């Protein structure tokens, strides 16, 4: 049935000029109709993949799948692009079961459906099986303080081990532009130069992990990911982890969202700035043109992990941490580099020569954890170190953890405590 009236020019899609515009793109305010939006979104991801040579013909790649919006869209888009452009990749869904009743068991159902919807093999690795501890029992043992640290460390290893089991050496995750921008801001606020250096890399491989991780959605706005899922009617799960404090309080995340409202291009601009920082920061570990390996001291830092929680646990900070951070920075000041003189712009091709003594980076000798064999520079890997602590305190009687979904009231002092831990830990990195 023909439309009764022609569509006014101001409401037309700016790309095809023939259909009604439904979407306003955050980064450019460009108005697009549904088909044009879907194809633009997909082509941009394809461009990211191609320009970084992300995939090799004939390889097997694991998609870190949580059932959430980012990993679901990631899986859907990768399947589409793989077929359309013949990447020749076999994608597998790799899901981690942290053992959180009322949260993870529900989202795993979503991943199982995704596996059928996208025709991908699904492998689920559980903390219980790997470590003998589910997150429910960890929280039961240590309470809600620092539990996100455990989860981040455990998750990183779990992803690696899951990939290894499948003979896979490349894991993709659904980190989006908002996540990266938030990480850049957080690292900036913390003055964490090594992490600032790493966090915008699209692919990271490291001496402390045999598995390469990449983020194909790195330049995709979170808003567009949600819109893509909506318009393609993708099946995803959207509830906060019941152990994380409410996401909405994260100050870096709130700042990003407020910025986006006022100046939507800010998110990508921050990502680009982060990439520029990365070239500016002197690093003995930076190989020319190659992916930067993880710096030393990474193992010594708590909760280091690319796999870090993408949930509400990310980017939390509150007033108290700024004070602690300042103290830490002052303590580090002796031997710190002289500040880099600001320049109007940085040419991408020319790494800036800085006149400072390069920070001494401790030599890291990689060997195997004496307990589990995982690659580590210490005697025990991070996860085993944490497990030692947990196992010492294991209660004799195992109490069934009854976690109500409505049980989201976290006292503000508990939250502050958790935020303090989270600032000290690595929850999202690149």
């Amino acid at each position, binding site marked *: 049935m023909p439309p009764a009236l022609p569509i006014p020019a101001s409401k037309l899609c700016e790309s095809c000029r023939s259909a009604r*515009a439904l979407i*306003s793109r955050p980064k450019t*305010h460009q108005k697009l109709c549904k088909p044009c939006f879907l194809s633009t979104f997909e082509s941009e991801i394809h461009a990211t993949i191609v320009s970084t040579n992300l995939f090799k013909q004939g390889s097997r790649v694991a998609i870190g799948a*949580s059932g959430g919006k980012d990993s679901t869209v990631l899986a859907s888009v990768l399947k589409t692009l793989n077929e359309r452009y013949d990447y020749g990749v076999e994608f597998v869904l790799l899901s981690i079961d942290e053992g959180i009743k009322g949260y993870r068991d529900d989202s795993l159902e979503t991943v199982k459906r995704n596996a059928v919807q996208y025709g991908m093999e699904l492998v689920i690795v559980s903390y219980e099986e790997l470590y003998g501890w589910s997150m429910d029992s960890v929280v039961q043992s240590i309470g809600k303080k620092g539990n996100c640290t455990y989860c981040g460390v455990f998750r990183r290893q779990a992803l690696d081990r899951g990939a290894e089991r499948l003979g896979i050496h490349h894991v993709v995750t659904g980190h989006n532009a908002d996540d990266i921008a938030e990480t850049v801001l957080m690292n900036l606020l913390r003055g964490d130069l090594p992490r600032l250096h790493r966090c915008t890399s699209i692919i990271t491989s490291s001496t402390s992990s045999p598995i390469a991780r990449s983020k194909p959605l790195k330049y995709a706005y*979170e808003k567009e990911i949600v*819109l893509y899922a909506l318009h393609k009617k993708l099946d995803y799960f959207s509830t906060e*982890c019941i152990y994380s404090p409410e996401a909405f309080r994260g100050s870096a995340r709130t700042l990003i*969202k*407020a910025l986006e409202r006022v100046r939507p291009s800010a998110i990508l601009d921050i990502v680009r700035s982060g990439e520029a920082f990365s070239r500016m920061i002197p690093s003995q570990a930076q190989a020319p043109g190659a992916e930067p390996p993880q710096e030393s001291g990474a193992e010594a830092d708590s909760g280091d992990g690319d796999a870090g929680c993408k949930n509400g646990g990310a980017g939390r900070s509150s007033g108290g941490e700024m004070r602690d951070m300042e103290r830490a920075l002052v303590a580090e000041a002796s031997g710190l580099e002289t500040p880099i003189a600001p320049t109007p712009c940085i040419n991408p091709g020319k790494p800036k020569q800085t006149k400072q003594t390069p920070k001494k980076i401790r030599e890291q000798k990689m060997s195997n954890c004496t307990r589990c064999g995982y690659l580590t520079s210490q005697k025990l890997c991070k996860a085993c170190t944490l497990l030692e602590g947990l196992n010492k305190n294991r209660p004799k009687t195992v109490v069934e953890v009854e976690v109500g979904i409505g049980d989201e009231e976290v006292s503000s002092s508990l939250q502050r405590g958790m935020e303090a831990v989270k600032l000290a830990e690595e929850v999202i990195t690149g």
Partner: protein
Amino acid sequence: MGEQQGSSPNGVHYKPVTLDVEFSGGLETLFSNQRSHRIQIPAKDPSEQPANLGFLVHYLCENLMKDKRKELFVLEDRIRPGILVLINDVDWELEGEEGYLIQDDDTILFVSTLHGG
């Protein structure tokens, strides 16, 4: 048809506006865990202006939200940044955001993006 709402000081009655409101991305937990609501709102806001989306947001907070955590939906009287609003499938940015005038049988969808992926 009974008209209970929206009488102005001089006694003129305005027919309430009927519309569908949908919540997704976790927001439904604030509204009795129900994704879809068919509601009626007054045609005019307290200052006699036609009901717009801004007014709808306030109305939802006052009348439909069963959860106390208003800040998950609104921040400083506006929709929280990070919540997408679609008016009959169209991005609210293309329809005037809070200034959009609500019409009968509109479908307003609120999708939260503020959760892990």
